[in-house]
């Protein structure tokens, strides 16, 4: 019964204070559209950065004379290095098949397989790659194991990849923080303004003997409704953008190894949740100042 009353109060407020409610609604809708566009972009950037980082590995080439027993020993030693996640063995035959696929003409000219057996050492964290490499190379040119011929040398490439992806990650995180800050400020200020317009009303309610929560509930419910409607509008805009702009492009993008982004359903849940949360909390908290009568 009380809930019914509070709901009615909230609807009345939105109907009779259309302008401030609309401003709050617009602020939330705009913010949510920006957030909704930004989340997949950050995700995509992170995805490609991680894709690049995950390709960072250390290749260990065995001597052609290496025996099966030696290979097993080397595998054990490689796995013993700290920071190594996985060791993948690629036999010379597999390597040959792989390489000849990418350049059949060149490999057809070869009479014998020049490729060595290879261990691909995959670090748990790409940042460990260089440490793992130097551990395999050992001190003073003394390799980890005599059966090892050589270790791949992508030091400068690895460094570049790590630096660039780190920069991308930091930039994205910074932008995300700024964006969240801006949206909270925008939504919070809009709600504050709309409440300020109604502070006289709150004052009168207090003088008639209404308790703080009796006054607050309709405002919080109004916040929830404004947040929900605002996010819904944002979602409709995002949905139209996705269908009209993104999906036609996706065909082209798949050539560029389409990055994995957040499923649309999750985006919907996150946006509606954030919209409602920010709006309801903003209303409830901003009201505190006006309740001190």
């Amino acid at each position, binding site marked *: 019964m009380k809930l019914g009353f509070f709901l009615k109060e909230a609807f*009345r407020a939105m109907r009779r204070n259309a302008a401030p409610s609309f401003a709050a609604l617009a602020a939330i809708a705009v913010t949510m559209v920006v957030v909704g566009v930004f989340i997949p972009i950050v995700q995509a950037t992170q995805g490609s950065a991680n894709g690049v980082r995950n390709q960072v590995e250390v290749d260990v080439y065995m001597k052609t004379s290496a025996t099966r027993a030696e290979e097993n020993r080397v595998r054990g030693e490689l796995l013993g290095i700290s920071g190594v996640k996985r060791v993948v063995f690629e036999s010379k035959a597999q390597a040959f098949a792989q390489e000849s696929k990418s350049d059949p003409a060149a490999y057809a000219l070869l009479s014998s397989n020049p490729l060595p057996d290879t261990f691909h050492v995959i670090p748990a964290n790409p940042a460990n790659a260089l440490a793992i490499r130097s551990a395999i190379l050992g001190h003073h040119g003394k390799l980890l194991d005599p059966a090892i011929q050589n270790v791949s040398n992508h030091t400068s490439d690895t460094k570049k990849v790590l630096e660039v992806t780190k920069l991308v990650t930091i930039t994205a995180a910074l932008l995300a923080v700024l964006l969240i800050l801006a949206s909270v400020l925008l939504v919070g200020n809009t709600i504050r303004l709309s409440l300020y317009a109604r502070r006289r*009303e709150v004052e*009168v*309610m*207090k003088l*008639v*003997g*209404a*308790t703080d929560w009796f006054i607050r509930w309709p405002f919080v419910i109004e916040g929830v409704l404004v947040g929900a409607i605002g996010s819904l509008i944002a979602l409709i805009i995002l949905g139209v953008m996705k269908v009209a702009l993104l999906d036609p492009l996706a065909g082209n993008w798949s050539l560029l190894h389409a990055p994995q982004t957040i499923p649309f359903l999750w985006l919907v849940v996150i946006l509606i949740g954030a919209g409602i949360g920010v709006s309801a909390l903003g209303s409830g908290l901003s009201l505190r100042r006006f309740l001190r*009568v």
Partner: protein
Amino acid sequence: MPNSRQNSGTRRRLPASGPGQSNARASIRSERLAAPGPSARPGGGRTVVEFRSVSLRYPSGDKGLDQATFSVERGEFVFLIGSTGSGKSTVMRTLIKELEPTSGTISVAGRDLSEISRAKVPYYRRNIGMVFQDFKLLPNRTVYDNVAYALQVTGHSRREIRAKVPDILRLTGLSLKLHNYPDQLSGGEQQRVSIARAFVNHPPLLLADEPTGNLDPDTSIDIMRLLYRINRTGTTVLVASHDHAMVNRMRRRVLELSGGRIVRDEATGLYVRDESTREFAQRLRNPPQAPESL
């Protein structure tokens, strides 16, 4: 009048003239005894409002009240007069606990206001009807909803609200304006709504801070008449006003403030006991040349 009595137990001074001079001169208490309502109930203290050496200094340094001491008995109709800035509103605002006195004690119905916690203030305020010069209606609600809000706050059921609101609107003469919004009403009508809202819970104490300050003289008389009618149901009424002429014609007890001090506490002119609200209004409109003419 045969059963008129000397008012006892109050510190109020009666008019300077002696008792036997006119039977129109009587204490307000006897009028109260004649009226039905809560005051007729036995038990409970008679003093509704008591200020004991109350001083209040605003944070800005302005003096709001200065050692104000007075008390109001149950069922009285008291005017609080004084020029602008004399502290009338300050008295009202301390009574609804909007302001805390710097020193001294205020009791309402025997309860020390300083002992009411912040969380309990809303419940305390429901025992006091408050009427303001600027009406303070909720602009987004109709006449009906403005009055109903005071009942919704106190948790009345919808059925009770539907029973009580039309009653009080009839009493205040607003039956035809039920669905108007405040900005569709005249000043006098808005003040009637505000009085209806203040009285719908039948509080034992009604405060009115310059209720006629924004109204023309005729409308003012109507509003005073309404307040008098409410007083006749047993409600103690305290009205702040700076309209001396009106106050003198009303012939009720008058408390005068000046610079936050109580400088006068007396019944002005001749009291008229037990007059009907119509006679009351008649007298306000046409001040008698002599008391005998009544």
